[in-house]
């Protein structure tokens, strides 16, 4: 009998928790939802703080994921105010799905670099070293922007990589390098910088010929269209540029 009562009490608690989770936090102010590429994480947190400081009562809520995953969620009807992608190809998908309100505008650029563990155990010095047999090289899968950028680099330089693993996002590549599980990885300049002392970045000239841009766009069905447009404009402004530059992004 007491067992039943306990079960009922447990179910009741569960129900309360569930309904509690379903309820949105309503702080009175407006909340801007921004879906952004994972590589923008650190820079956008700072930009969001600046934007909130300039717009009292406005909270910027970010969701950082792989650009392609976010693009697919948008195509499936996920509603948000702004989408910032790590390349134009992924943005084009959102535009083609008629989910964008207006034209995407590029606000930053990025390029690849070679990241090696702090001690550089495999003695990597150039891109050609990655094609040697021996070093365990990890790159992004061609399906995601950083992998597309990797393919661009391979095409431009003629260097054929044979990676031991193709990860689904750039942070996974970086983590393998940090953990010492890979001798080298191709990551964005910004990711290598964010990792600080944990990795060493080895620049290669061809990366400057494979620069790719980060476009942002206001989404159709945005909860706060004007505010979203303002955020998109803010990304083009000097304050945002400064923050992006600090994290290693280039200017368009």
């Amino acid at each position, binding site marked *: 009998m007491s067992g039943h009562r306990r079960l009922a009490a447990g179910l009741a608690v569960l129900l309360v928790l569930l309904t509690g989770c379903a309820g949105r936090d309503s702080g009175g102010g407006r909340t801007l939802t921004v879906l952004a590429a994972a590589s923008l994480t650190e820079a956008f947190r700072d930009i969001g703080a600046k934007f909130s400081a300039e717009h009292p009562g406005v909270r910027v809520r970010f969701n950082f994921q*792989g650009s*392609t*995953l976010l693009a*697919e969620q948008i195509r499936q009807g996920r509603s948000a105010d702004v989408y910032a992608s790590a390349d134009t190809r992924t943005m084009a998908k959102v535009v083609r799905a008629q989910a964008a309100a207006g034209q995407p505008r590029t606000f930053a650029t990025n390029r690849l670099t070679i990241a090696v563990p702090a001690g550089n155990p495999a003695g990597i010095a150039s891109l050609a070293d990655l094609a040697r047999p021996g070093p*365990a090289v*990890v790159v992004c*899968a061609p*399906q*995601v922007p950083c992998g597309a950028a990797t393919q661009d680099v391979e095409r431009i330089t003629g260097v054929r990589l044979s*990676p*031991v*693993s*193709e*990860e*689904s996002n750039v942070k996974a590549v970086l983590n*393998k390098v940090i*953990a*010492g*599980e890979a001798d080298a990885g191709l990551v964005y300049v910004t990711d290598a910088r964010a990792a600080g002392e944990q990795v060493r970045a080895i620049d290669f000239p061809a990366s400057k010929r494979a620069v790719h841009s980060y476009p942002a766009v206001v989404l159709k069905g945005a909860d706060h269209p004007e505010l979203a447009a303002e955020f998109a404009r803010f990304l083009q402004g000097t304050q945002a540029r400064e923050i992006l530059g600090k994290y290693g992004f280039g200017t368009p």
Partner: protein
Amino acid sequence: MQPADRSAPRTQRRRGAPVERSRTGVPAPLWMPAAMALALLVLPVLGLLTRIELSRLPELVTAPAALDALELSLRTSLAATVLSLLLGAPLAVVLARSRLRGLRVLRAAVLLPLVLPPVVGGLALLYLLGRTGPLGRLLEDAFGVTVPYTSAAVVLAQTFVAMPFLVVGLEGALRTSGARYERVAATLGAGPWLTFRRVTVPLLVPALGSSLVLTFARALGEFGATITFAGSLRGTTRTLPLAIYTTAQSDVDAAVAMSLLLVVIALLVIALVGPKAVEGRGD
């Protein structure tokens, strides 16, 4: 069921075998949540079916990347199931029959992979067997063997998450059947090894089917531990679940088609082996 129940005279029902009643009479309040449970399990899969691009399906399902992933998945899951059987069945016997101290702790340790998120399992494997892990470095220095990024790493990850199903299933069967047959065998003069082969193993057989199916199914669906520990490379470590994840980043139709492959295999496994094994155990 219910009309028949109501028409039966009360006295007769009271006198009727209790087993009979408990099997036929489902209390009315249970129907609704039961239906919801079924809906929750089945509707998402049907939702997946609605996303299928029929015109592209044959081409997508037979795409080389999909077939490579399918082949790798079947090979590694089978290997993981065999490994689980070879190692897990003896462990089940030890857990069920030995009088080791601290058996409870061991039993909890076996359950750990069931409770841990697979990604954590993958990290744990990586920190042990990775190139910088204590055991991994030893293997690399002594034998020149690197575990991560190989199909063997996939099998290890799958075994890590799937073997507990086998151990728990077999141990449960052994414990419910009790040790009396073995004791009788011993009194008749059979040694432990003979008893094991002629008494314990036959006792395990009914539970073996369902346990193996569960183990294989879990290995087939393994994702988190594999992608964390083994990496993702076509033909070597990119099993069907990993291929679905990677493909979904750019081509959702292709990812859905691959998911369909996985669903079909799962249904085949359940249809061919599942019910029979489960029934055998129930009776």
